[in-house]
């Protein structure tokens, strides 16, 4: 909570500062941005690169690179993750001293691009494009020809559920969202203290993932202008579905990642969690008592027989537009996210779910928390393949903050969830207009 408020305050302060000094500064000329070849041929002695990341043990992974590449030395600076990290990077870029490489969450990458803070790596990444699924690649290109980062990890969404309690109550794993709703009612009947799940009005990322699954396209770029479609039919459908369940009392409305949520997970009062592939880490730390009792299945679908999913979380490695050694930085980023040895280290040391397709299918033993489900990673890879593409916009921060405000109110007053979605749309469009983005109507 504190962190969120702080992030919001920081973002507001930043926007104000950037807006006030943004217009006057000349934007980097396209020639300057696209001439990495000049630096590529003439590296003057060993290059040192700084790299902002929050992945654990990244320094150990980088050590391996540094040993093999004496001419390109990378220094890791471990940062805090999340919205604040994006705000910090943008400030640093604006001030003219950003790190050479930065870990960029997919939803923040567009704001980096809009601020001309990250370099286009199209030439450097041409050979590795095939290593990633189309959905993931779209997250770093925004559907354009340029490439602004190399995908590192991803968070395809799945349904995590308490297998033991599902069996006890005779609930079959829901295949569609309709079945999920019915299962929710069954749980209420069998144990009035328990819920099948909860709708979190504090986690826009989860809602975005579920909207993606339904086929939502919140932003798109056509030519020079943006199109904003947050209140599209798919998103309204998802919102109203959850709104009805909350209103009916079939599911709970406590936010994720709070102490009470942890406690409910521990006590077996929350039976499922539509979450992303990284959930085992969270569960094992926040609900250690329920180890071995959880299982995973694909997300329930909107139409029987489909196999769609969405992404919640995940990040890429981007290169600063102002880095004096872009080519070297791109070389390192490529190694980190496509070299089998490097990905192996990422999986093992940094506990990420790799973005590279081949690495996804190479994952072996299931996470310890899910020891009873040996095909955990196979399931994940299958789900990942069905994750729908999505484009984030340049002001996701505003959209996400409006989500929190509007859905908080909607949950509290039991009002329409699709009105909250409309509020997100309106706030996002208003903010983009104010920031001077060209909008297609």
């Amino acid at each position: 909570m504190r962190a969120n408020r702080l992030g919001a305050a920081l973002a507001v302060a930043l926007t104000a500062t950037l807006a006030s000094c943004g217009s006057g500064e000349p934007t980097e000329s396209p020639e300057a941005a696209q001439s990495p070849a000049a630096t590529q041929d003439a590296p003057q002695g060993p290059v040192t690169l700084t790299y902002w990341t929050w992945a654990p043990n990244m320094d150990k992974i980088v050590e391996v690179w540094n040993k093999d590449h004496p001419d390109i030395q990378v220094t890791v600076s471990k940062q805090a993750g999340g919205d604040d990290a994006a705000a910090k990077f943008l400030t640093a870029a604006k001030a003219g001293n950003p790190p050479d490489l930065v870990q960029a969450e997919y939803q923040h990458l567009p704001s980096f691009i809009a601020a001309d803070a990250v370099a286009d790596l199209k030439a450097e990444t041409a050979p590795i494009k095939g290593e990633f699924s189309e959905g993931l690649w779209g997250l770093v290109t925004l559907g354009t020809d340029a490439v602004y980062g190399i995908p590192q990890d991803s968070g395809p969404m799945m349904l995590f559920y308490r297998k033991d309690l599902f069996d006890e109550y005779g609930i079959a794993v829901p295949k569609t969202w309709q079945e999920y709703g019915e299962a929710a009612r069954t749980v209420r009947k069998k144990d009035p203290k328990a819920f099948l799940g909860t709708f979190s009005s504090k986690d826009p990322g989860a809602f975005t993932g579920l909207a993606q699954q339904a086929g939502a396209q919140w932003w798109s770029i056509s030519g020079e202008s943006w199109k904003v479609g947050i209140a599209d039919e798919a998103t309204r459908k998802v919102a109203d579905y959850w709104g009805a369940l909350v209103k009916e009392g079939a599911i709970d409305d406590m936010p994720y990642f709070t102490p009470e949520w942890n406690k409910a997970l521990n006590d077996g009062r929350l039976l499922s969690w539509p979450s992303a592939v990284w959930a085992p880490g969270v569960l094992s730390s926040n609900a250690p008592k329920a180890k071995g009792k959880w299982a995973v299945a694909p997300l329930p679908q909107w139409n029987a027989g489909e196999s769609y999913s969405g992404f919640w979380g995940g990040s890429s490695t981007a290169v600063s537009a102002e880095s004096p050694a872009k080519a070297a930085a791109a070389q390192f980023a490529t190694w980190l996210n496509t070299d089998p040895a490097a990905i192996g280290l990422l999986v093992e040391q940094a506990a990420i779910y790799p973005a590279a397709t081949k690495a996804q299918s190479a994952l072996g033993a299931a996470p310890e928390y899910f020891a009873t489900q040996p095909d955990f990673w196979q399931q994940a890879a299958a789900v990942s393949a069905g994750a729908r593409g999505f484009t984030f916009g340049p002001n996701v921060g505003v959209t996400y903050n409006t989500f929190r405000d509007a859905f908080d109110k909607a949950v509290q007053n039991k009002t329409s969830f699709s009105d909250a979605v409309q509020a997100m749309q309106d706030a996002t469009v208003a903010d983009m207009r104010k920031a001077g983005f060209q909008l297609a109507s």
Partner: protein
Amino acid sequence: MATVSTAAHRRARAGRPVGAVPTALLLLGALYCLFPVCWVLIAATKSPGELFSTATLSFGTGFLDNVAELFAYRDGVFWLWAGNTLLYAGGGALLSTAVSAVSGYTLAKYRFPGRDAIFNLLIGGILVPAVVLAIPQYLLFSKIGLADSHWAVLLPQILHPYSIYLARIYAAAAIPDSLLEAGRIDGAGEWRLMSRVAMPLMVPGMVTIFLFQFVAIWNNFLLPFIMLGDDGKFPLTVGLYTLLAAGANQPALYNLILTGALLSIVPLIALFLTMQRYWKTDLSSGAVK
């Protein structure tokens, strides 16, 4: 004197029921302030498994493990952060106290053109929250190439308008003009007057300023968060925050954060307990006057 004391005595006896309300309010206030500390203390003793599964106010069994784990985290980076915090808070508070004391003394005891303008500007400075200045300061420090250095955190905290204001008020009250006059007549130079006459009289005020600044810098988050990119220069606040916001796909290391938070307030408590007697002399010297 005697009547006053008996009157006070009587009032105290008669007013006992009335006194219960303020006492209760104060107790409530103390509880309000101390409860979070107690919670941190209790939570820090819980192992990761116990943290969210046992009752809030029951002690856990994992304190020593937590401490060991915290010290081992990233090869003992906790100590590095603690050292940085000590440098920022200790160095910053010392420098800030020195600057404030000299400025306050000057503003209180010398008449020179522009004195009121400077003072009014400082008063205005009190009204501007430091948080608002952090980003402009960062942009400035980037321009002069000092961003991401120790100085970037130290320098902005040295000039603290409120401390100067406090020092001026204190100097005006604690240093009699006649004493300075006497010194001048005896032939003491201005430097000697300040260092030998004025400053010793200002020590209790300086201690207050030092403590204020020390605590403020110790707890400061936003300035170092924005200024510093290199995690080897982080203070404890920013460092522990990297454990909390460990990324969406990483669980926050709650047990280490709680233990770290607990350990990081221990020096503050120790400082307050040892510095308290200066405050007492401050109060009593005022009473004698």
